[in-house]
């Protein structure tokens, strides 16, 4: 029984308790995040690929009668997501600016989000998978409301209610799933669920899949359940946006991969048309919405919605290649969008505005910032050399392999790459290139802290981009046969 996973969850919580009791917030938070990164790297390295399957298991009995226990375990996908989570957490905490009001609350919120998402990824029990994710709801609400910018209150409300409703629908779906198990063997343990599904001993109604799709979908901002995301990300303080768009959002996809993929194969085939329709909505429609944006933060917010489309495309292709691509894309998008939001926040802190009409030519005064943003932008455009490209191309191969039904989605997807180039280059052009307003002459370039916390995100992105097989062989362990 390995305690490393529970340690991953406990460390942030412990740190936040200490902060509540008056320890120095930033120090505590940073050290917890750093330790977490170390642990997850260690886990990632120590995972036994030849054995595969679930490892580092540990279990606590919670409701044994109902077959609900807190079970932690990890396979390749989990570890990848944990790595993502701890990377982004550290970067987010590291890049957090000087907080003058209620510093403690700020870091406690961040740590809670981190703990929640880590717990969600590490849980083998569906109920805890869900519960841990909810842990982030209130902190996000508080952070956007207190330290956000722009029309932050409305954004916070919308996101909170939307996600609350979405996750409750999800809960209902999970309950329905649970109840559709023959009463003797009721359980929420993923492993047993998979076994049952593999053995064909239980066949949940495909309606449940739809409920789950709506529930998870609205957490992932699947079109048309996306309208909470852009304002929330645009208004949230950079670290929150990083955590939420980078990691938390991936939970919905993670859940679909873990639950829908193994348990609802027929249903997924049956409703693939619907899903593909929504995917096209995500890529094409949201893509063009993104093109129409006039502010940097909104552009990135919408782009993060659009890119979910590729991941869903990968899932919808229902084969090892596509799902693999989706998983890699989850990792890649998490890092790249986090970097983008981090730099967004840096720019906002310097200029106080992200309106294209007021920016321009900043590369002159903040060359390093410009360079980093260029990396982030190119990553999200899907340039080879970044993990995003690897993910996207795998998604395309997978989708192509699915069959003729995918012709249109694939064409749309490949065209989506052009769209994202359109808005990203536009964003870069109107932020960092072109003539610069005189009022920005005094801007200072990025601080070393911020520089390194962004590099922390970009380096893994490029490593994986150069050698995707590194992740491929990890995440493949999570793909149901």
């Amino acid at each position, binding site marked *: 029984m390995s305690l490393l996973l529970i340690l991953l969850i406990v460390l942030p919580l412990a740190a936040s308790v200490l902060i509540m009791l008056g320890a120095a917030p930033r120090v505590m938070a940073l050290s917890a995040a750093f330790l977490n990164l170390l642990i997850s790297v260690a886990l990632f390295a120590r995972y036994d690929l030849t054995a595969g399957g679930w490892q580092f298991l540990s279990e606590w009995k919670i409701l044994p009668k109902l077959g609900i226990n807190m079970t932690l375990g990890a396979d390749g996908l989990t570890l990848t997501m944990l790595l993502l989570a701890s990377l982004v957490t550290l970067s987010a905490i590291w890049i957090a600016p000087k907080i003058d009001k209620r510093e403690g609350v700020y870091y406690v919120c961040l740590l809670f989000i981190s703990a929640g998402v880590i717990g969600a990824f590490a849980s083998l029990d569906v109920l805890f998978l869900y519960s841990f994710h909810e842990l982030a709801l209130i902190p996000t609400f508080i952070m956007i409301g207190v330290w956000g910018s722009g029309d932050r209150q409305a954004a916070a409300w919308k996101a909170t209610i939307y996600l609350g409703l979405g996750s409750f629908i999800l809960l209902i779906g999970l309950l329905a799933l649970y109840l559709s198990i023959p009463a003797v063997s009721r359980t929420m343990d993923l492993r047993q669920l998979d076994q049952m599904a593999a053995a064909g001993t239980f066949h949940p109604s495909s309606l449940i899949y739809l409920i789950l799709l709506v529930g998870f979908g609205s957490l992932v901002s699947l079109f048309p359940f996306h309208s909470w995301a852009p304002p929330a990300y645009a208004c949230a303080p950079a670290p929150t946006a990083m955590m939420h768009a980078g990691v938390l959002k991936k939970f919905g996809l993670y859940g679909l991969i873990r639950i829908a993929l193994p348990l609802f194969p027929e249903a997924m085939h049956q409703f693939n048309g619907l899903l593909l329709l929504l995917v096209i909505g995500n890529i094409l429609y949201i893509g063009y919405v993104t093109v129409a944006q006039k502010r940097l933060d909104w552009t990135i917010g919408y782009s993060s919605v659009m890119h979910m489309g590729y991941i869903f495309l990968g899932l919808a292709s229902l084969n090892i290649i596509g799902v693999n691509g989706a998983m890699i894309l989850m990792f890649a998008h998490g890092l790249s969008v986090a970097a983008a939001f981090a730099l967004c926040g840096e720019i906002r802190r310097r200029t106080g505005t992200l309106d294209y009409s007021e920016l321009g030519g900043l590369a*002159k005064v903040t060359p390093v910032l410009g360079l980093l943003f260029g990396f982030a932008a190119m990553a999200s455009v899907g*340039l080879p050399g970044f993990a995003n490209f690897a993910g996207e191309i795998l998604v395309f191969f997978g989708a*192509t392999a699915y069959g003729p039904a995918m012709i249109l989605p694939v064409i749309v997807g490949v065209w989506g*790459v052009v769209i994202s180039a359109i808005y990203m280059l536009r964003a870069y052009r109107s932020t960092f290139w072109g003539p610069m307003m005189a009022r920005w002459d005094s801007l200072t370039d990025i601080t070393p802290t911020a520089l390194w916390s962004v590099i922390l995100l970009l380096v893994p992105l490029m490593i994986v981009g150069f050698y995707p097989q590194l992740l491929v062989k990890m995440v493949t362990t999570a793909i149901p046969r």
Partner: protein
Amino acid sequence: MNLSTIAWITLFVPLVAAALILFVTRASKPLAAGLVILSALITTIGGWTLFAKSADGIYHGFNWVDFGHALSIPFDLALDPLSRTMLVVVTTISPVVFIYSIGYMKEEVGFARFFAGLALFLFSMLGIVLANNLVMMFIFWELVGVSSYILIGHYYQKASAADAAKQAFLVNRIGDFGFMLGILLFWIATGGPEGGTFTFAAINHPAPIFVQNPALLAVAVVLIFCGTVGKSAQFPLHVWLPNSMEGPTPVSSLLHAATMVAAGVYLLARIFPILSSSPEASEIVAWTGAITALGAGILATQQDDIKGILAYSTISQLGYMVTGAGLAVSAALPMFHLFTHAFFKCLLFLTAGSVILGMHHEQNIWKMGGLKGKMPITFLTYCCGMLALSGCPFFSGHYSKDLIMACSWEHHRGIFWVVVIAAGLTPFYMMRQAMVVFFGKPRSEHSEHAHESPLVMTIPLILLAIPAVVAGYPFFEHTFFHEIGTLSEPEVPAYVPQVFLGVFLAGLALAFFLYRNVEKDPIRIPFLENRFYIDDLYFWIVRVIQGGFAKLCSFTDRWFIDGILVRGSATLVWTVGFALRFLQLGNIQAYALFFGIGVVGLIYMLLHVR
């Protein structure tokens, strides 16, 4: 040191140089230049060694992605006659241009950034050359795209430069859209998850599906060809190349004349067997090339920017190559023209750069004049390049062009005549440029005080002038092309070469008499000056159609999905709550009344519901 090591080193040295500059020596100019040129020279040595040792074979690196049977994307280097020849071209021209750049960029800010960009480009270009499969090629294809983006946007403070860079990237992306689909189509056609592949070796044998269904094959090939259209600036995606002249001249010379834009043609040469196995596709390719050659030639006659003229001539020449690829019996033909063109066009751009420097960054030819005395070396080398380009006998360009002519006559008369006209235009606009720039009397005080460029720039000119003249001679033809495929002159009636010669002389003479000491262009055709209004048309499409659609989407997203569906339902709930709360009147009797109503209702329901 075995050959594969050499190959790998050759490929990665420039990347290392770029990385070093980026992370270590960003500050120092000489270090940056030194590193890059060093790496370039290493690649030169490597390239030539590989060529000399005729080190053919597949050098396996690692599996970039590997799902075993279902899909595996190997990262291999392919060395064969084709890639070796191309390798020589790239590795030979690059260091020369790099050296030239030292002089050209001396004064510039962002010197290091510029050289890092060049190194990155060299790496990606070599990647394209050595790639063994379509995906690898696509990867480096994108990378040259981004390096060209960086280099065009070197003067990012200039709005025009920034826009040009953006446009170049996007237009290429559009081409790559087709390229990607083509790759997918080839993969699925060759078996997809059941052992689909995309190594050139494999796809060049038509897959069974393609044999049964030639139309599908044509589609696949044309999709790949889209990549060429984008990268090699063929009509209708040619618009970016003239604008890319916003970049520093060495960039225009190396990327946008000699090597990168030729990658498209190289791609066609790579897939030549499959291309030629599909007549429809070949015809489409040929016509695209021909139209491009002609159109660009026409446009070149009315440009006033010294680099603009060259840019259009580049497009036109690329058109030749593409036509060649469409019509030839072997990949050697387009490659041959690519080969010769690389040298003389690179040379021409460098001379133009030297002129521009001499003119203190004045690019309008109508501000120049009478420079032949003031910058003799530049002038002479320019003449070599210009004659080679115009297809003057005994100059390299003549031979390659001649072959393309012959072959087009053999296969397709229509195309032949188009190409002939284009061939006639070339000497005309080149002569026009020469007359206006070098002859006559100065038209501005810049040209009064123009001066020859430093040795660091003139030596490269001389170095390039030599191959510009000789590169077409049979020796080179034999050395570099017989392994690729036959270049034997097809049997053509005597009038074909005569026509060719005739149009050459005609163009030359016409330009000579028209532009002999004139102050301003005697012929002004707005339709041509405005590039057939194609750019404006595209601009309009982007602004109105795409922009409009985007606005529409954003509007519906804001007001329908978010407005009505989301906020609407929220408001509904809020309203209901607000209304319900007014039942809570605070008056006991009201409560008693509701109570009574409740009682009656409850009893009634309990009694009568089934």
